[in-house]
Each structure stands twice: as structure tokens, then as C-alpha cells.
């Protein structure tokens, strides 16, 4: 979805404002928002891509004017409504020990696959010009641009399919994941910083071969 969460390259937000000796939380409700988010996530009613999609589907003005924990809380409200979890029987609050074991676990999204990776390190690839209305993790600034594969990261669950409609079983068939370098000039034009390189982590369906394209 071409949403306002896809912020890379916008120029209207002013300077970055680091805070000296920033506390982990600024308000008590932020502590609870974090913990509730993790506690409800542990009930298995949605996956990380469904929750990301709930947050990025908030109304644009709400998204841009909310702190990040506020985005989390509003996203949770969407997820709770979409799964009907308040009306479900058989869900049980996780204990502290269960939650701590969960956050200490390595919940990898890497999956075995019998397919071979289509691209290799050093190969030039073009990020497809995709504009899906659902969830995607290919940022707009990279679409249509040519880059170079610098790493093959294994086969991972593909977010565009994993972000299934709430309540439906997601398709977790994995896709090969690559890190792709783009020069600043490829992304931002001739006036870009000549020393800049930006990489994105891109699943195979985001990429296409440039062999045969005119250089």
C-alpha cells in the first residue's frame, strides 16, 4: 500500500531531534502499551505482518500526528476488532514467565525451501514497480531502480502474503531474501551525495532480472 508510513526520501519533517539521556519510556501508558502489544501478540491471533499492516492502514493524518506507541495502541484496536478476539472463548492470558520466554525465543521467519535462489551476490537487479493495495515491504523510493545484490539472506516468509486478512490463515510459503545496494544517484538523481549507498532487504518477488536490458 502506498501509505504515509513509507517515509524514505520525504523532505518536509525538519531536523532529527535526539533527546539527551532519553528514558526508555516517557509516560506510564507507554510501558503498558508495549507490554499489552507483546501480551496480545503472544495469543497468536495475528502475525507481525498483519500487525504492521494494521498500523500502516491508520488514517494518514492520524499516523503522522501520533507517537509510535500511540500508533501501536491504535493498531491493536484494529487487530482486536478484526479478529473478534474479545468475543472468542478459549483465549487465556499468558503468564509473566510465558511472555518472558516468548520474548527471549528466536522466532525466526526463515523457512526451508527446495527452490534455488534466482539471484547471486554481485548480480544487478531491478526492483519491480509494484503498487499493491495490501501490505508490502518494498519501499517506494526503490521501485523501478537498479541495484546490486550484496547478500543472500536465506528464504523467509513473504510479508505481502503473510499479511492475510485478519481471521484468515496466512500463506507462509517462503521466498528468497536478498540485500540489494542502490547508489544514491540511482535513487535520488545526479545531485545526490556521490558517496551514498542505500540497501534494502528485498524478497525475490520484488526483483527482476536486468540481463538484456540496455545499460
Amino acid at each position: 500500500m502506498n501509505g504515509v508510513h513509507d517515509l524514505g526520501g520525504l523532505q518536509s519533517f525538519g531536523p532529527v531531534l535526539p533527546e539527551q539521556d532519553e528514558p526508555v519510556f516517557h509516560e506510564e501508558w507507554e510501558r503498558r502499551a508495549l507490554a499489552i502489544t507483546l501480551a496480545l501478540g503472544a495469543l497468536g491471533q495475528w502475525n507481525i505482518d498483519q500487525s504492521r499492516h494494521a498500523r500502516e492502514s491508520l488514517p494518514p493524518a492520524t499516523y503522522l500526528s501520533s507517537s509510535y506507541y500511540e500508533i501501536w495502541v491504535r493498531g491493536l484496536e484494529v487487530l482486536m476488532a478484526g479478529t473478534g478476539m474479545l468475543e472468542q472463548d478459549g483465549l487465556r492470558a499468558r503468564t509473566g514467565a510465558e511472555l518472558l520466554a516468548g520474548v527471549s525465543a528466536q522466532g525466526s521467519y526463515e523457512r526451508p525451501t527446495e527452490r534455488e535462489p534466482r539471484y547471486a551476490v554481485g548480480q544487478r537487479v531491478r526492483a519491480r514497480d509494484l503498487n499493491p493495495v495490501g501490505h508490502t515491504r518494498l519501499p517506494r523510493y526503490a521501485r523501478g531502480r537498479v541495484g546490486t545484490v550484496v547478500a543472500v539472506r536465506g528464504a523467509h516468509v513473504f510479508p505481502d502474503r503473510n499479511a492475510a486478512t485478519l481471521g484468515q490463515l496466512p500463506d507462509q510459503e517462503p521466498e528468497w531474501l536478498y540485500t540489494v545496494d542502490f547508489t544514491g544517484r540511482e535513487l535520488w538523481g545526479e545531485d545526490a551525495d556521490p558517496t551514498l549507498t542505500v540497501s534494502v532487504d528485498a524478497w525475490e518477488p520484488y526483483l527482476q532480472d536486468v540481463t538484456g536490458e540496455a545499460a
Partner: protein
Amino acid sequence: MSTDADHGQHHDHPEFSELSPMDARVRALETLLTEKGLVDPAALDAVVERYETEVGPHNGAQVVARAWADPAYREWLLKDATAAIASLGHVGRQGEHMVAVENTPERHNMVVCTLCSCYPWPVLGLPPVWYKAPAYRSKAVIDPRGVLADFGVTLPDDTEIKVWDSTAEVRYLVIPRRPEGTEDLTVDELAALVTRDSMIGTGLARSPERVTP
């Protein structure tokens, strides 16, 4: 309505006075979820405790200091960061696929998540507000030198800048350059020089004279 009597109570429990809209909203949410048996407030306390006190950039600082002090560990970290970091006990959510990237005189690395707030929790803890805010997420990929200037950092014009946009479940940790004059320091003393921002790439490690004047 406020009376003198409950004024006293407000002083004892300042969190109950003048609830902000978000405070009220999250309290209502927690109450509802508790009544429905979906969350246990004591379990929430345990999660908060974990992320407020135990997990934080001190974990990543140990990793970096070890890499500075121990060439074999540095090599392992650059080759298989997930395993090298796990060997120091830092595992868990948002750290499943770690990659360490090393700053050199020729190249400076910076990490961002333009799409949301992806961040290596086991080594850096929860992200600071600025990391999740639009200014950083928008600017890092198009004007990283401008971001560095916002943090008071200037690099030579010919230093390559590499920005890693965390668009998948890979999480990046920057190994900042080891400051000069630190040859005789212990690993713990070195770790004290490693700031959170230096491991995101928006800052540099501290010089020892600024730590122990």
C-alpha cells in the same frame, strides 16, 4: 470533582491526576483485556521490567567492545553476528537475524527502518523516539550527512556512507570505529565508550578523555 482530601491523594499518586487521552485509553484497554482474561497485569509488569532494566544498549556495547579487543571474536561477529551475539547471551525478539557492519576510515554505516520501527532489541533495547519518528525515517536514506549534522557529527567528504534500510527481519548492528588512545583499556572500559547512537550509526564512539577527564 476535586476536594482538599483527594488533593492529598493526588500528591501520593500523581499518575491518577489529569489523565492524558492516551493514558485514559490505555488504562481502559488494559482493564477490558484483564476482565476478559486476555492479559494478566502482573505479566505485563514482568515484560516492562525486562525491557526497561535488562535489555538495552549496554548489551550491544559489550558486543562491540569484545570485537574491538578480540580479533577472533570480531571476525566471527562479521561472519555470523547472530551466533556471535548469542554467545554473549543476547538473544530474543527482533534479533533473530543479526548482521554486524563495521565502520572504517573509508566507510560509515547507518541503520534505519523507513517503513516502521525495526530495531535490534536484544542488543540495543527499545528504540528511541527519534528513531521511530518521520524526520529520521525520511531523511536517513536521502541525506544521511544531514542526519549526522543533526547529531553534531561531521565526516570527511570522501567517506562513503552506507545506509541499511531494515525492510525485512534482518537487524543491523554498527560496529563503530575504535577511538584512538584506547590500547590499554579493558573490555569493560571499552564498552563504556560505546554509545547507543554509535551502534545505529548516527554517532561515534566516545573518546576516552571525555569519559575519564
